[in-house]
């Protein structure tokens, strides 16, 4: 056998050496005929650049230049038959009888010939049997958010996107067909040019629960297209990581035999607060009035408090008070914090290729300032993709992505101290910002935090791969690749002597460096075979992946003064570190068969072994099957000219999940990270059990069935895609709560089941198309119903257990006491389940509503008129709820900080109809944390993106020696319609299980306005 391997290798080598000249000899033209041509758009009669002209019978091909012209010489004689192909236009087969020819290409309204990227390969969209959604990056990449995932909102059916905060570069909440997991991650798998991309934030410094997104290291301008694989048939090839969908990012590659094209895009503008989403604070006099009322009412209800009208806090100064309410000033801290955040985005892309190689070089800079002071994000990136045909059989290539992102951060989100946005909201408006001596009043006020607290993060990221592809024999291709995703995330934080933490520690500096390194080695062998009407394709492969994450943390306390910031100058230095690793080994295969472009079938299998699991269940097997039937090709529908395409698809399969759980979740562990002293002052290491082991821990499994229909009508001017799916996840990886008397509160186990059922609808239509005017509409709506089918014990989330996971309910349901009304006679809050004696038993706390929308989606219209184009995109969601934590904190005791205007609607006298109960510290009115009064409908409709562009006239452009030039305006989040007070998408934490906790300390998403110029050389 060894012998035959060598024999094979020798054959391979020789064939390359020998066959090459033979091939080139074949394509050497004998000059006999010259063909010149011009290719124009059939409607606009504009020249089209880059159209491939392929002469039949030979390998020779050329492309049209920027003026749509091509020319080739051939050994054949006229008439010549050749075909044209260009993305977005219908391909034509033409026979030229003369040496000069003009060709009109019809724009392809149908996208059925579109090639879609699927797992380990590409497929024509028309041949798909799985559910795959696609978006061209250019449709969304002008929206000024830091990462491509956040740009997808409202664009793709089955993809729910919520941007949790207005801080650029923070993690967002994205789900493909619902949430399947509780303690494991429900994020999709991200793959960029075949490299599995880390999507777990490396942030370690606490910023109030919100984390940065690692996807921001990828420049959206380098992306060509984004494909979302949704059903089991599409994702099972990624086996253990496919359960939550797979998002495949394909970057720009250049094309063979094309002229070098230089594309420059400059875009700048600003971000500002949508003021309707900002908290509305009561004025100084209002705050004081409410504080007095609270004081007096509480005193009436509980005389022991000794709070009376006579000693109310806001009484005349002469009486020892703080002055009457009407004398109180009003200070605007929020106004001070706001600004117009500068937005900049500059990108240069150079792409092209020769016969044997192609390349893309991208360089970009993005700068995004938040609309509140201090916070900003910037990214500098370089992209280099290169492929080269070593011989007719061997191709090698590289993809490279280098980037550096820099963040100036601040604490937003939760936390009693030092939360920047919160500091502007939580101080009462009548409290002076400055003391009479001009110094700042109190620690951690907004002004202090802006100037005296620094958090900076630099992320250096390399994502890339090198591959070689060998055509072994016709139809059989071997590919091997090595890929890496390497990220160094460097955080530093400094609290100077004016902040509370600085005061407490004589200044504090922290530094954390995380390094995440993934390497992947992958081999695939793919085969294509066609005979008659039969088409067979197969792929077989393996992957080895290893991931190491290590973290080093330094903290210095006690600095000489504010000028000393380096940790080495601190009096006390604390250090810690962490190291963790996992490996995955996989084998996979797929066989596809189609008959006569009518019947399609596909089967996939992947086997994954993960180091995370117990020795008993390390390997998981994930099969999937799918079939498609193009009915429109059947004889009985032939000749129906209105019907362009009709296909039904069905798939069923099993996928897995293991992301997000601890790398050592299956182990029984004792930690060595604790200390105690043997005698006073002598600290020594301590150990103790920290985790209960589970050798049976195994893969979380999701079975998914999908039924789909693709319909195209009227020459594909109207196309509809409908999908119905049912996902059922079992063996949930769960930190299962166990009896506390065991000494543990939970351990990792496979318990619980979750289902997601839903539908997706995508309608695209070309409403009008004339020579000058075109109008396209695209609508997508998706609904998903989530249900926890089995869970042994309820699990509560977040500090006050507002959110609960409980069997029979959706994930992220709320656990609250429902306030039904405010008694118009007494002003007391009336709760569901309240007993006749007025007490409220724990049993009255009920699970209801949840953070997920009943349906969501987007509707987009694009209009082009001559050189103008206009795009209007809306996104929406309906039926989601959120506890408005801002209101929870600011609509209570008015003497404990900022008060929202809504409290002015409180009950004051018998007969008042309101939902804001009488102000008092006694009774249930303001002592129930989990009060449904703060639960709000978070449905919304928003104008996500508005683009208006103008292509400069051709004559002008040519005079400037350019190929094309376009100026445009793009605005995002311009209008929002919602009942929610604030940004309905906001969430206090990046924790996916605690979604539905809105607003607290979290800046809403900004409105942005930008002007751009796009020039192509």
């Amino acid at each position, binding site marked *: 056998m060894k012998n035959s391997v060598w024999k094979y290798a020798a054959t391979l080598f020789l064939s390359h050496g020998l066959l090459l000249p033979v091939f080139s000899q074949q394509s050497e033209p004998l000059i006999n005929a010259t063909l010149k041509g011009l290719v124009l758009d059939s409607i606009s009669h504009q020249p089209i650049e880059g159209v491939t002209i392929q002469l039949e019978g030979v390998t020779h091909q050329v492309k049209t230049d920027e003026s749509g012209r091509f020319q080739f010489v051939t050994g054949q004689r006229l008439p010549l038959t050749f075909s044209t192909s260009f993305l977005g236009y219908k391909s034509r087969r033409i026979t030229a009888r003369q040496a000069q020819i003009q060709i009109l290409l019809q724009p392809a309204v149908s996208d059925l010939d579109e090639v879609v990227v699927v797992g380990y390969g590409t497929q024509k969209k028309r041949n798909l049997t799985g559910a795959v959604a696609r978006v061209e990056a250019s449709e969304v990449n002008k929206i000024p958010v830091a990462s491509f995932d956040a740009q997808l909102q409202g664009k793709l059916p089955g993809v729910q996107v919520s941007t949790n905060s207005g801080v650029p570069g923070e993690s967002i909440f994205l789900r493909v067909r619902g949430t399947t997991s509780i303690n494991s991650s429900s994020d999709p798998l991200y793959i960029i040019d075949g490299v599995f991309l880390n999507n777990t934030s490396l942030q370690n410094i606490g910023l109030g629960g919100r984390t940065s997104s690692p996807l921001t290291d990828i420049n959206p301008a380098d992306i060509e297209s984004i494909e979302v694989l949704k059903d089991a048939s599409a994702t099972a090839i990624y086996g253990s990581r496919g359960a939550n969908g797979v998002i495949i990012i394909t970057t720009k590659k250049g094309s063979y035999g094309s002229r070098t094209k230089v594309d420059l895009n400059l875009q700048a503008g600003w971000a500002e607060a949508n003021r309707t989403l900002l908290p509305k604070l009561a004025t100084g006099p209002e705050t004081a009035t409410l504080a007095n009322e609270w004081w007096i009412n509480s005193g009436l209800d509980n005389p022991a408090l000794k709070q009376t009208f006579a000693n109310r806090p806001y009484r005349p100064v002469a009486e020892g008070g703080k002055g009457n309410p009407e004398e109180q000033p009003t200070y605007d801290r929020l106004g001070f914090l706001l600004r117009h955040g500068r937005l900049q985005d500059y990108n240069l892309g150079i792409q092209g290729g020769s016969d044997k190689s192609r390349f893309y070089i991208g360089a970009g800079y993005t700068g995004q300032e938040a609309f509140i002071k201090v916070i900003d994000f910037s990214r500098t990136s370089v992209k280099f993709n290169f492929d080269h045909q070593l011989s007719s059989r061997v191709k090698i290539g590289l993809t490279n992505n280098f980037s550096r992102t820099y963040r100036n951060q601040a604490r937003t989100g939760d936390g009693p101290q030092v939360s920047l946005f919160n500091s502007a909201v939580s101080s*009462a408006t009548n409290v002076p910002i400055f003391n009479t001596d001009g110094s700042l009043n109190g620690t951690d006020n907004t002004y202090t935090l802006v100037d005296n607290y620094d958090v900076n993060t630099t992320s250096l990221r390399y994502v890339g791969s090198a591959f070689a592809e060998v055509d072994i024999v016709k139809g059989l291709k071997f590919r091997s690749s090595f890929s890496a995703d390497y990220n160094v995330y460097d955080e530093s934080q400094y609290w100077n002597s004016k902040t509370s933490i600085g005061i407490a520690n004589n200044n504090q500096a922290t530094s954390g460096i995380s390094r995440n390194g993934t390497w992947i080695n992958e081999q695939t062998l793919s085969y294509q075979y066609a005979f008659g009407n039969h088409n067979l394709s197969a792929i077989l492969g393996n992957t080895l992946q290893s991931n190491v994450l290590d973290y080093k943390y330094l903290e210095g306390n006690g600095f000489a003064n504010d000028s000393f910031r380096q940790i080495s100058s601190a009096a006390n230095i604390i250090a810690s570190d962490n190291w963790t690793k996992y490996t995955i080994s996989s084998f996979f295969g797929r066989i596809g068969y189609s008959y006569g472009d009518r019947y399609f079938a596909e089967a996939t299998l992947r086997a994954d072994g993960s180091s995370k699991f117990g020795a008993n269940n390390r390997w998981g097997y994930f099969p999937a099957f799918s079939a498609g039937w193009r009915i429109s090709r059947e004889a009985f529908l032939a000749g129906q000219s209105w019907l362009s395409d009709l296909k039904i698809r069905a798939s069923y399969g099993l996928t897995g999940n293991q992301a997000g759980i601890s790398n050592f979740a299956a182990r029984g562990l004792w930690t060595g990270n604790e200390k105690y002293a043997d005698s006073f002052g002598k600290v020594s290491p301590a150990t103790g059990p920290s985790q209960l082991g589970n050798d049976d821990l195994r893969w979380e499994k999701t079975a998914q069935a999908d039924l789909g229909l693709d319909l195209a009508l009227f020459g594909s001017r109207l196309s509809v895609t409908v999908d119905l799916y049912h996902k059922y996840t079992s063996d949930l990886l769960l930190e299962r709560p166990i009896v506390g008397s065991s000494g543990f509160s939970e351990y990792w186990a496979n318990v619980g089941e979750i289902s997601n059922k839903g539908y997706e609808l995508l309608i695209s239509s070309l409403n009008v198309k004339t020579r000058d005017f075109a109008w396209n509409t695209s609508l997508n709506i998706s609904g998903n119903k989530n249900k926890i089918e089995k869970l042994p014990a309820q699990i509560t989330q977040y500090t006050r257990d507002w959110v609960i996971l409980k069997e029979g309910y959706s994930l992220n349901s709320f656990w609250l006491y429902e306030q039904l009304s405010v008694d118009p006679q007494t002003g007391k809050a009336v709760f569901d389940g309240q007993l006749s004696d007025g007490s409220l038993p724990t049993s009255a706390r009920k699970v209801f509503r949840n953070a997920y929308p009943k349906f969501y989606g987007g509707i987009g219209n694009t209009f082009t008129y001559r050189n103008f184009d206009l795009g209007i995109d809306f996104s929406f969601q309906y039926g989601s709820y959120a506890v408005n934590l801002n209101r929870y904190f600011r609509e209570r005791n008015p003497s404990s900080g900022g008060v929202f205007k809504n409290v002015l609607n409180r009950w004051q006298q018998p007969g008042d109809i309101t939902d804001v109960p009488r102000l008092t510290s006694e009774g249930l009115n303001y002592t129930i944390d989990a009060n449904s009064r703060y639960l709000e409908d978070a449905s919304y409709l928003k104008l996500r993106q508005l683009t208006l562009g103008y292509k400069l006239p051709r004559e002008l452009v040519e005079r400037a020696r350019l190929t094309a030039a376009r100026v445009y305006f793009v605005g995002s989040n311009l209008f929002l319609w919602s009942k929610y007070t604030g940004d309905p998408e906001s969430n206090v934490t990046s924790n996916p299980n605690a979604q539905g906790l809105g607003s607290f300390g979290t800046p809403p998403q900004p409105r942005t306005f930008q002007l751009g110029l796009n020039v192509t050389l």
Partner: protein
Amino acid sequence: MFTLMKKTRHFLYPLIILLLTGCNSFLGVEPRSSVSDEVTIVDGNSAATAVRGIYAALRSNDYYGYSFQLLGFFSADNIVYRGSQTVHQTLTNHTVKSDLAVLATAWNQIYATINRANHVISKVPGLALTTTFTETYRNQLVGEAYFIRALAYFDLARTWGGVQLVLQPTASASSLPQVPRSSLADTYAQVLQDLQKAEQLLPDETNRIRATKKTARALLARFYLYQKNWSEAIKYASYIIDDNSNYSLVTPYRSFYANNTSNTKESVFELVYDINNTSGQASQWLAGANGGTAWIRPSQDIYDLLVNPAIGGDRSALVSRTSSSTDPNILIGNLYYRTDRTDPVFLIRTAELYLTRAEARAQLNGEGDLTAALADLNAVRRRANIEPLEGLGKAALLQAIEQENRVEFALENHRWYDLLRTGRAQEVLGIASANRLLLPIPFAQVSIDPDLHQNPGLD
């Protein structure tokens, strides 16, 4: 087709064989910061680290560092909660529900501490002795585990009543404890048994941050006081009071904690923290100007008592008053003042043993007992720089001792439990229902543990 298969086979076989053989070692990844269960307590050294681990659990934020403390703090009238989690105030007005998160954290951590102790109690006695790992040292380690287990069950019993007694370590998820709740008497019997073992095993040394025979005796004094076994309480308190070269009432009052002092003769048992292992409650005591939140504060009542020179005396150092932009009257507790959050938690102080003996003697009410009781009480008063009391009858003396306990341990976790053990809580704190003298078992525990039933009248 055939040739194709042949060629592929040649190509693939070596590849697959290579990959399959490499796989098992490729998938074997060992953690570095933790170790697997089996290799934890194997010799003297590892036994010592495991015992330190029990203390680490005892002082953690979920137990004496914060959560457990809150339960006693807010249930009585010395300490109030003024933070954003207003639901903590339900402890103060005795309407607390079983879903209060801090109930569950404290409960779970106390049992986690017990589990650590159980590991030591079950494994260390079997370890082979060496020249450095002597029998005395082995006994000390086991004795410390018994001591902490006793303290943990004592805390459970006085807070929740009789509880499930788990005396074996939890080895795996398949062998979780399934035991019914024991009666209060049985729970206390277990405490006594463990304390007596600890007293017997522990060395007769002075170490204020670790359990010794003396520490065990001090806790036994408290235990017998709770049990109203007055003569034993007197006997055990006297062990400490009489050991006056090691234990005394330091003067002035604040010198046992102020100016970064710790480990003084006042202290019988304290849990220490350092900058790497800070105390969770510290930041909630600290004023905003010192980097804290002042969510935990002395009540107005205790403030008034402490600053009264006739009652508080030097103990007025425990409190101060400040204001902020939003709050003109912020009362600050000064027992926790270190801005680096390394304040120790004082579990047993010499003053407690004086007052324990005073109370036990007063209760005995025999000849000379009242005088002796008064002397013990006055020792504490004298140290606080207030006038000694004279000529009190039994009832008045007990009343004075109760008051003295209140101010002497104003910001330590004594008041609630003192009122409970003397049966005075309902009257003093105005609690209508006797059911409220126990806290509810955490909601989540009752719902997942069929062996655990809620305390009567609570939910």
